[in-house]
C-alpha cells in the first residue's frame, strides 16, 4: 500500500475543491451559494447564475476533469512504454498527429453529406483525431525500435510534429476562411468550447481507455523491467506494447479532438503522482495519475478564468497556464536526471 493512507482521500478532496473553484471562476464571479444551488438544485432554475452554470461552467469543468485524468494516464502509458521520463502526448508528436486528423476532417467536411455529419454528431471529430494520434504513435514506435535513447526519441517526436504542422499548413491553404478560423481556435487549446454532447463522447472514449489501462496494470508493471525480463515473466511484449499505445492514442486523441492540444499535463502528471505515491506499481500509480491530472487541469483552468485585479474574470489561454507549470517541471526533471548520471 502507499505509505500514507490519507493520500487518496486528500487527492479526491483536491479534485472536488478544484472543481468548485473552476465552476465559480469566470467572466461573472459566482458565490459559493449560487454554485451550490446550481449544482445540487434549489434556487430559481431560470436565474442567470443557474444558466451560466449549466451551459458554460459545468461543461468546461467536466471537460477539465475528464481531460486531466485521461492525459495523466496517457502520459504515464507513454513514459512506461518508451522508457523515457520525458515522453508525453505533446512531446512525442501524438497531439500533432491528432491535429492532422482534425485538420483533414475539416478539409473533407464539405465533401461529405451534411445529413450524415449531423447524424454522427461529435463522433467523426473524435475518430479523426484518435486515428491521427494512433498513426503518429505507431510512427514513433517504429522509430523507437531503431533509436534507443530518449533524447533521439524526443527529437523524432519533434520532427513528426513539424511534419504534421507542414501538412496542416498545406491543407489550410485549400480551406475557406470560416474553417480556417475554426481550426485556429482549436489549435490554441482550451476547454471553453466543449459542449455537452462533445463531453459525452469524450467521457465515453476516456472511460474506455482508463478502464483498459487499469485492467492492464499487472503486465504494465512487468514491462518496467524491460522487454526481456517482461517476456520471461510471461508478457507478450510486442503485442502488449501496441495495445498500450493504442489505448494511449484513444485517450490523447479523444481529448485533443475537443480540447485542442494541451501542453505539459500528460508529461508532468506521472512525475507528480510518483512523487506523491512513492511507488511504481501502476495499480496505485494510475489512479493517482487520474486524480492528480484532473486536479491539475481543473486548477489551471480555474486560474485561466480567475478574477483579475478589477474583479472581472479573465480569459487567459489555458496552455499559457499549463506551460507555466509544465516547462519548469520538465527542466527540473532534466537537470535532476543529468545530475544523477554525471
Amino acid at each position, binding site marked *: 500500500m502507499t505509505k500514507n493512507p490519507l493520500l487518496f482521500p486528500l487527492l479526491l478532496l483536491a479534485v472536488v475543491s478544484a472543481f468548485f473553484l473552476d465552476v465559480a471562476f469566470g467572466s461573472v464571479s459566482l458565490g459559493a451559494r449560487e454554485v451550490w444551488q446550481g449544482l445540487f438544485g434549489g434556487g430559481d432554475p431560470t436565474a442567470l447564475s443557474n444558466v451560466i452554470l449549466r451551459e458554460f461552467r459545468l461543461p468546461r469543468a467536466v471537460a477539465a476533469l475528464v481531460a486531466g485524468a485521461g492525459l495523466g494516464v496517457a502520459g504515464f502509458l507513454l513514459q512506461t512504454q518508451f522508457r523515457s521520463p520525458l515522453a508525453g502526448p505533446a512531446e512525442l508528436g501524438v497531439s500533432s498527429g491528432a491535429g492532422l486528423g482534425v485538420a483533414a476532417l475539416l478539409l473533407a467536411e464539405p465533401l461529405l453529406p451534411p445529413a450524415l455529419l449531423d447524424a454522427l454528431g461529435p463522433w467523426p471529430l473524435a475518430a479523426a483525431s484518435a486515428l491521427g494520434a494512433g498513426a503518429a504513435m505507431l510512427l514513433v514506435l517504429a522509430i523507437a525500435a531503431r533509436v534507443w535513447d530518449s533524447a533521439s526519441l524526443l527529437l523524432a517526436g519533434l520532427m513528426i510534429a513539424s511534419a504534421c504542422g507542414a501538412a496542416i499548413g498545406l491543407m489550410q491553404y485549400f480551406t475557406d476562411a470560416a474553417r480556417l478560423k475554426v481550426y485556429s481556435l482549436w489549435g490554441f487549446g482550451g476547454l471553453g468550447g466543449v459542449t455537452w454532447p462533445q463531453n459525452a463522447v469524450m467521457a465515453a472514449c476516456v472511460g474506455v481507455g482508463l478502464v483498459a489501462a487499469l485492467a492492464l496494470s499487472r503486465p504494465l508493471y512487468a514491462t518496467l523491467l524491460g522487454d526481456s525480463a517482461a517476456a*520471461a515473466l*510471461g508478457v507478450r511484449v510486442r503485442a502488449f506494447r501496441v495495445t498500450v499505445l493504442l489505448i494511449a492514442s484513444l485517450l490523447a486523441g479523444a481529448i485533443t479532438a475537443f480540447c485542442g492540444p494541451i501542453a505539459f499535463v500528460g508529461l508532468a502528471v506521472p512525475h507528480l503522482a510518483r512523487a506523491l505515491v512513492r511507488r511504481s506499481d501502476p*495499480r496505485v500509480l494510475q489512479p493517482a495519475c487520474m486524480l492528480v491530472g484532473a486536479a491539475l487541469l481543473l486548477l489551471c483552468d480555474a486560474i485561466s478564468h480567475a478574477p483579475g485585479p478589477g474583479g472581472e474574470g479573465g480569459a487567459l489561454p489555458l496552455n499559457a497556464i499549463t506551460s507555466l507549470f509544465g516547462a519548469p517541471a520538465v527542466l527540473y526533471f532534466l537537470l535532476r536526471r543529468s545530475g544523477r548520471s554525471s
Partner: protein
Amino acid sequence: MTGVPLFARGLSVGHGGASLFPSFDLAFHSGELVCLLGRNGAGKTTLLKTLAGLMPPLRGSVFFGENPISDLSGRERAQRAALSLADPGLPPYLLGRELVGLGRTPHAPWFASARETDDAVASRILKELECEHLADRPLGRMSDGERQRLGLARALAQDAPILLLDEPLSHLDPPAKAKMLGFLRDWARSVSGRVVVAAVHEVDLALCFADRCLLLSSGASPFFGTPEEAALGPLRTAFPGWPEYWDALGVRKGRIRVEGSGTVDAAGG
C-alpha cells in the same frame, strides 16, 4: 523422460539463423545445480534465453517435463521457469520490495489487485536472502551487488521449479559468491523437481559447488559432465590460455586438487 524437469532434444541455438554449436541433446536432472561455463561470447546467455523460451531454437525443442515449451503460453512458461538476466537496466525509482514482488506476475490474475500477497512473498524471500534492509530502498540507491541479489530474489519469487540465472555472482564479494552458490545448490536439492542452471565466470567455485558443468565453446559440441571430468580436459579446450592462467596464479600440478569421485590433477600433466 519422466522425472527430468528440463531437457532439450536436437537443440541448435544462435542468432539470425547462424548456429553457435552443432546440435546437441541436454537433460537436466531433478535436484542438480548446473554451472554454465564458457568464454565471453560463447553463447551462455543465448542458451539460457532459448531454454527459457525467450528465443526460439534454430532447430530442435526444449521440454519442461513432458511439455515442449512451444506448446506452453508465456504465462505457463513463466510459472515453470524463472530467468534472471545479467543487466536488465532497471528503473532507478523501483523499490526493492516492488522488484521482488514483480516475480509474482505469472501467478497473479491480470486484473486482480493482489498487492498484499506480492508484498508478503517479497518479504519472505528478502528474509531468506538476508536482504530485508533493501525492501524499501529504490534500486538507484543500491550497489551493483545489492541489485544482483534482488534480481535473484525476483526470480525466486516467481516460484518456478526451473531457475535459469545469467551471471548471478558477478558483482558479489568472494565469500558471498561461495555462499550464494551454496544457497542455490541447497535450493535445488530441497524440493524434488527443481533444477538450477547458472552461467558463471567463477570457474573455481563452479568446480567446487556444481553437480555438473556445461561447457560451451563456439563451434564445438558442448561438454556436459561432472566438475572432475570437466577439469580433466574440456575446461582447457573451452578456455584457450587456461594453463597459462593457472600458471599465473601459481597453481602447479599437485598443489590444487579437485576432490570428487576420484582425485584428479587439476593442472594436468
